[in-house]
Every structure is written in structure tokens, then in C-alpha cells.
């Protein structure tokens, strides 16, 4: 999963301090593996170097952790592209799909549309794998089956998530 893009997404929601970003990241996305502070600040440093965020309001008298980070137009464009583009359809995507859905809901973006686009990408890949099955040898068939069953599980998750978007939106927006 992309930590830089997730932090950018959180910053598009509202300007934030490093500590708050880590707290929100851990709360929604870390799944029991908290993001180390060192990684938060090194990632923010790279994002600032690349012009995707800027640092503002170094509050006088307090330490460097009180720097406030604001997303730039370039950073917002990255978030938009990432959310809109379907993920390459391959097995075990649940983490990145989950992150995209939660961020889209946080940002008030059309999560259902993104899931529809992703469903299309999954179905296309399933078509390709099915064609491989129909023309390949037994080894190809078995490898394609593995991919098909995983993609099918993702599709079930996508369908269930679409049905739960309203409820999930209330949770992530507090």
C-alpha cells in the first residue's frame, strides 16, 4: 500500500500536523502495524521536496513536531489520479482497495464510481484469465484458476462494500 499517497489523501481532507497524520493513519489504515514516526516525517520530507505539500505555521516556542502540512495542487492531482485509476487487477488487493474507499469517503468523493471502475478492471482481467484457461494446458488452467478465485473474492468484497458505503461513510467521517 502507498504510505505517501495515503498521507497526501489525509492532508487533502485538511491541513494537519505529523502527529495527527500518524494517529489517523494508524486509526484507519495500519491494521495493527502502526506507522513509525520516523517514516511519517521522512515521507512528509520527500513529499515537501517534490512540491506535493508545503510546511506552514511553525508555531513559535514549540518543537518541530508542530509544523503544519498543507497539500499543494500537485499533491491533490496525485491523490485524484490515484483514486480514479483502477488498481491493476491481481490477487490480494484488499489493503489498497480498502484504503482508497476510506479515503474517497473521507474526501467526499464518489467511492461507488471508483469501485465500479475497479470492478470493470477486475472483470477484464478475469476475461483474459478465462481465455488463457480455454486455450492453455492444464498448468495454465490451474494458475489462471488461482487468479480467478482471488479476483472473484475481490469482486464479492467490492459488491458488499458498495452496499455498505453509506454506513462506512458515517464511520469514517465521524
Amino acid at each position, binding site marked *: 500500500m502507498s504510505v505517501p499517497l495515503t498521507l497526501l489523501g489525509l492532508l487533502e481532507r485538511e491541513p494537519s500536523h505529523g502527529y495527527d497524520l500518524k494517529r489517523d493513519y494508524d486509526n484507519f489504515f495500519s491494521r495493527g502495524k502502526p506507522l513509525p514516526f520516523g517514516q511519517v516525517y521522512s515521507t512528509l520530507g520527500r513529499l515537501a521536496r517534490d512540491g506535493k505539500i508545503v510546511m506552514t505555521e511553525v508555531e513559535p516556542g514549540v518543537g518541530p513536531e508542530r509544523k503544519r502540512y498543507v497539500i499543494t495542487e500537485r499533491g491533490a492531482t496525485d491523490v485524484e489520479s490515484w483514486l480514479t485509476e483502477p488498481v491493476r487487477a491481481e490477487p490480494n488487493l484488499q489493503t489498497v482497495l480498502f484504503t482508497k474507499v476510506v479515503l474517497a469517503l473521507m474526501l467526499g468523493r464518489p467511492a461507488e464510481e471508483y469501485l465500479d471502475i475497479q*470492478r470493470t478492471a477486475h*472483470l477484464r482481467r*478475469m*476475461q483474459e*484469465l*478465462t481465455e488463457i484457461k480455454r486455450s492453455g494446458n492444464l498448468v495454465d488452467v490451474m494458475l489462471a484458476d488461482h487468479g480467478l*478465485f482471488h479476483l472473484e473474492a475481490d469482486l464479492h468484497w467490492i459488491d458488499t462494500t458498495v452496499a455498505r458505503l453509506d454506513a462506512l461513510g458515517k464511520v469514517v467521517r465521524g
Partner: protein
Amino acid sequence: MKAIEARDVVLSFGETPALRGASVSVAPGEIVAIMGPSGSGKSTLLHCLAGILVPNAGEIHFDGRRIDTLDENQRSALRRDCFGFVFQFGQLVPELTAEENVALPLLLGGVKRTAALKQARPWFERLGLAGLERRRSGELSGGQAQRVALARGLVARPGALFADEPTGALDSLTGEQVMDLLVVSAREQGTTVVLVTHDARVAAYADRQVIVRDGKVNALVRS
């Protein structure tokens, strides 16, 4: 060029809306899968496209001809002469042998019995059913019965084949065999296929998938 088209189709069962402006088109020879959650209206859409149900509003076209305005007799003749059907549970006629079941659309279309059976028999070899011609449906496995139903759906070389959950009652491997045969046979004949399924792995056999949700066809999934 469109073989089958639904334009803004609306249909309610009593107070319950099933289709709320569904539009979809299928090109000649194309295999399209209609997917969607339970109760989304996907089977209702199939039944409208096949002239089984008549929409409250909107239009259905087949081969450039509007069919929703035909009367029951005309639609019945259209279904008999131009369409083939495969349902979830083969729905073979239990009193008839397998080869008589396959020949049934020809017999109903006025072909003489000997000629109809002669035309039906090659399908048994083609679909891996050789030797089962004289069996009745109770003596066939689920997969065999569904292949007989597929042969019955295609034997009269229909312009369109409508399949409603054709593998829904089969195990995974048998379902794949049926889908493979369906695709190969339909392509050989150039038959347009509209397939309803809730199973993405079945839908993946189609050229294109559309999603029906809340009685509408999801435009994003059109290619």
C-alpha cells in the same frame, strides 16, 4: 449495428418497480453477460429482451424490428422461430428422450420428426453426449441435462440465445464445461448470446459484462 436493444425500459410488478429505465444493446454475434445483485432486475431485463415480458414503457428491438409492440401470438412465434433459451434447471420435458428434447424446437417449428431427429443427433457428439440420445432427463446427470438443454437452445440456429443462470445448478467444473461449450457453439453459429449470471467467473466467458443495479444498467461497465 445492434442485434438486440433495450431503450429506457421500465417495468413494475404491481407497485414494485423492477426496471427503471434500463438500456442496453448487444451487437450481432456478441456474448453479453448481465450481472447484478439479487433483485436488481437482471432476469427481468433478460425476459424483456427475449419478448417474454412486455415493458410498461420503453422499447425492445431485435434485428431492427420493434418487438415490445407485438401481440402475444406474434411474440410467441418470434420466440419459437428466432430465439433459443437455456434456464438454470435444464427444464427438459421428462417424458421425452434426450434427442427428442433437443429436436423439440424444430418439431414445434414444423420440421418433420425424422428430419428433426437427424438434425438433433450431431449435437450429442459435439457436446460430449454421444450414447445418451435415448435417455430421459431423469437418467442424466445435472451437467448432461444442461448440455442437452444447450443443444436444444441452439439446434434451430436461433438469432439469439437467452441463458438465465445456465450454470447455477452445476458444480464449478461442470459449469465451466457448459460455458465453454456454449461459447464455442454460439461462435460457430454466429448466435448472439445474452446471459444472466451472478457468478463473475461465468460472466468472464462473455465478450462484455453489464451490471444491473436498482433496475438500471450501469453505464460505467459498458465498453
